[in-house]
C-alpha cells in the first residue's frame, strides 16, 4: 500500500478510535494516571540529582581556583600551613584589587544543628574565611544583618542553611564545644553551595579549634580563566609547596559525582520498576480498547480498511495516551517539586548540602520519552491482536 494512502487510512481509523474514548474513559484514565505517576516519580527523583549538581556546579566558576594539599580529594582531608597560604596568594595569575590579592585561606569544620521540622541533628559546614572571601567567591551577598567582625565569635549563615536548620536567626547565640557563637547575618550565593554553609572569621575558627595558623584550602580568584594553567604550574614547580591546584568548578563537580550517580541510579531503578507496572496498565487498557472496539474494527476491515492501518492506529492511540501521561507527569513534577529546597549529606565532605530540586526541561523531555516508550510497549501486542481479529466472527459474534 502506498504510504500516503496508509497514512490517510490510519488517520481515519485513529480519529474514530479517539472518538470512542468517552465510552471507555475509565481504563484510558487509569493508563494515563499510571504513566503520569511513573514520569512524575522519575522526573522528581532525577530533579534531586539535577538540583544537587546545579548547586555544586554553581559553587565554583572557571576563574576561581582551589588549592589543597597534594593527594587530598576533599577539603576535609587537606592541610596547609599558613606560609603555604601566603605563597599561594603571591602566585602568578592571582587577581588583585585595591585591598590586595583576591585570596582566601579557609578552614572547614563540621558543627551540629537540628534540622527544622524533624529536629534531627545534622552536620553543617562552618567555614572560616579571610576578609577577601566575598570578593574571591564573587557571588555571596548579605541579605540580612551584617558581616561578622574580625576577631569575634560571630558567624553569618547562608540563606539555605538558615531555612533548613534551627537556631540561625540573626541575633541567636549557639554554643559548640563550649564556645558561644552569635549569628549576625544571612547571605545568599545564587543558590550555590555556599548558601548551605556558615561563615566566620578564619582566625577565630583556627583559635577555637586549635589549628594554629593551618588551613585546609586556599581559594583564589584568577585574572582570567586562562590564567589557571600558569598558576597551577607555578605552584607545582615551587619546591616549598606540596599542593595541588584545581579549578573550583572541577572540584565541586567531582564532589557531586558520587551522590549524583547514586540518586540518578535510584531514579532510574524506581522508574523502571514503576514503568513495568505502567506498561501492564497500558497493555490492559489497550487490550480492553481493542476488545471493546472489535466490532468497529471488523466493520472497518470489512469495508476495506487494511489491517496495517488498524495496527498503526492502535499504536497511535497508545502513543497518545503515553504523551498525555508523560506531559501530565512532567508538569505535575514541575509544579510540585521544582524549587523545593532540601538538605542532604554529601558523604564526600560529611556535611549537609542544601540544594533545590531542579525540574529541567531536559528531565521533562526524558520523562515524556519514557512515557511514549511505555505507551508503545503497551500498545504493541494489542495492536497485533486487533489486526488478527477474525472479521467474519467479530461481525456476527457481537
Amino acid at each position, binding site marked *: *500500500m502506498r504510504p500516503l*494512502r496508509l497514512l*490517510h*487510512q490510519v488517520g*481515519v481509523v485513529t480519529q*474514530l478510535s479517539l*472518538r*470512542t474514548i468517552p465510552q471507555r474513559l475509565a481504563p484510558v484514565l487509569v493508563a494515563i494516571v499510571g504513566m503520569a505517576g511513573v514520569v512524575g516519580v522519575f522526573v522528581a527523583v532525577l530533579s534531586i540529582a539535577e538540583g544537587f549538581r546545579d548547586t555544586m556546579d554553581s559553587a565554583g566558576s572557571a576563574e576561581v581556583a582551589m588549592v589543597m594539599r597534594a593527594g587530598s580529594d576533599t577539603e576535609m582531608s587537606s592541610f596547609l600551613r599558613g606560609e603555604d597560604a601566603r605563597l599561594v596568594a603571591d602566585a602568578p595569575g592571582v587577581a588583585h584589587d585595591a585591598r590586595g590579592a583576591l585570596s582566601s585561606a579557609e578552614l572547614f569544620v563540621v558543627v551540629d544543628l537540628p534540622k527544622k521540622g524533624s529536629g534531627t541533628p545534622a552536620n553543617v559546614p562552618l567555614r572560616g574565611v579571610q576578609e577577601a572571601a566575598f570578593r574571591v567567591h564573587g557571588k555571596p551577598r548579605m541579605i540580612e544583618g551584617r558581616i561578622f567582625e574580625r576577631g569575634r565569635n560571630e558567624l553569618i549563615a547562608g540563606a539555605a542553611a538558615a531555612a533548613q536548620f534551627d537556631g540561625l536567626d540573626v541575633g541567636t547565640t549557639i554554643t559548640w564545644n563550649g564556645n558561644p557563637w552569635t549569628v549576625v547575618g544571612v547571605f545568599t550565593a545564587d543558590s550555590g553551595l555556599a548558601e548551605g554553609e556558615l561563615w566566620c572569621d578564619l582566625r577565630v575558627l583556627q583559635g577555637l579549634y586549635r589549628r594554629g595558623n593551618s588551613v585546609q584550602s586556599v581559594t583564589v580568584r584568577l585574572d582570567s580563566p586562562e590564567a589557571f594553567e600558569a598558576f597551577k604550574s607555578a605552584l607545582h614547580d615551587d619546591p616549598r609547596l606540596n599542593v595541588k591546584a584545581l579549578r573550583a568548578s572541577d572540584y565541586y563537580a567531582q564532589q557531586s559525582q558520587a551522590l549524583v550517580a547514586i540518586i540518578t541510579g535510584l531514579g532510574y531503578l524506581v522508574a523502571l520498576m514503576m514503568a513495568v507496572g505502567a506498561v501492564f496498565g497500558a497493555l490492559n487498557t489497550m487490550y480492553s480498547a481493542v476488545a471493546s472496539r472489535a*466490532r*468497529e474494527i*471488523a*466493520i*472497518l*476491515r*470489512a*469495508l*476495506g*480498511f*487494511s*489491517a*496495517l492501518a488498524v495496527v498503526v492506529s492502535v499504536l497511535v492511540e497508545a502513543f497518545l495516551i503515553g504523551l498525555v501521561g508523560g506531559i501530565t507527569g512532567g508538569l505535575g513534577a514541575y509544579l510540585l517539586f521544582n524549587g523545593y529546597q532540601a538538605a542532604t549529606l554529601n558523604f564526600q565532605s560529611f556535611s549537609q548540602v542544601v540544594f533545590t530540586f531542579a525540574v529541567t526541561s531536559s528531565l521533562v523531555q526524558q520523562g515524556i520519552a519514557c512515557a511514549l516508550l511505555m505507551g508503545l510497549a503497551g500498545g504493541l501486542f494489542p495492536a497485533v491482536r486487533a489486526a488478527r481479529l*477474525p*472479521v*467474519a466472527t467479530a*461481525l*456476527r459474534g*457481537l
Partner: protein
Amino acid sequence: MNDALVQVREVHKVYHRGSERIDVLDGLSLEVPEGEFLALMGPSGSGKTTLLNLIGGLDTPSAGEIVVGRSSLGTLSSASLASWRAGHVGFIFQFYNLLPVLSAEANVELPLLLTRLGRSDRRQRVATALEIVGLSDRAKHYPRQLSGGQEQRVGIARALVTDPTLLLCDEPTGDLDRVSAEEILDLLEELSREHGKTIIMVTHDPAAAARASRVLHLDKGRLSRESGT
C-alpha cells in the same frame, strides 16, 4: 468465457474445534450471473453466511477457488483483498453494523474515505446514496436516533455509495418488523432491477427469499435444491 460475475468452484471450508473437525462447506460450486438477485436459504449451520463471507473476501476457503469478476480471491494478499472489497463489494448486515459515533452521512461516507475522491465528490455521492434509500432528511442523525429500518437503510446506502457490482446481504431483514422488512426488500429489488446490482442475500425468511430471482437451498455445506421465483 464464463460470463458469471461470481464463480464458486469446489469450495471447502473446514473449522476445527479442539479435535473435532467441522466441514461447513463441502465441495460447493455455484455461479451467479451479473445482475442476478440470489437468495441463499437453509437451516442454521448450513454454511450460508460462511459462503457469503468467502465470496466477500472476509474469510478464505480451506480448498477450492472463488472468482469474482476478474479476481481470483485466493491469489490476493490480505491488503489487496481489503482494497478489492472496498472497490467491488457492498456489505449489508443483519445488525446494520453502523458506527455509533458517526452520523448517518459519516457512516455512509466511510467507504469513500478509501478512494481518491475529494470532499465535494464524496458529499455528492453520500447525498445520492441517502436519496436512493429515502433518508436524505436523516443525514445528520446518529444511529441511536434512527429506527431499525432506518439504520438498515443507512447500511444499504453505505453499501451502495462506492457503486459496487456486488451486494452481499446477511439476513438484511432479520432484525426488522414486517413493514420495515418489506421496505428494505423493495429497496433491494429496486437496486437489482433498476441499478443492475448483483445481490446475494442470505435469509431464513421465505417471504424475503420470494423477492429474489433465484433461491438456492443449502444443507450441511452443500446445495440441496434450487427454486426460481
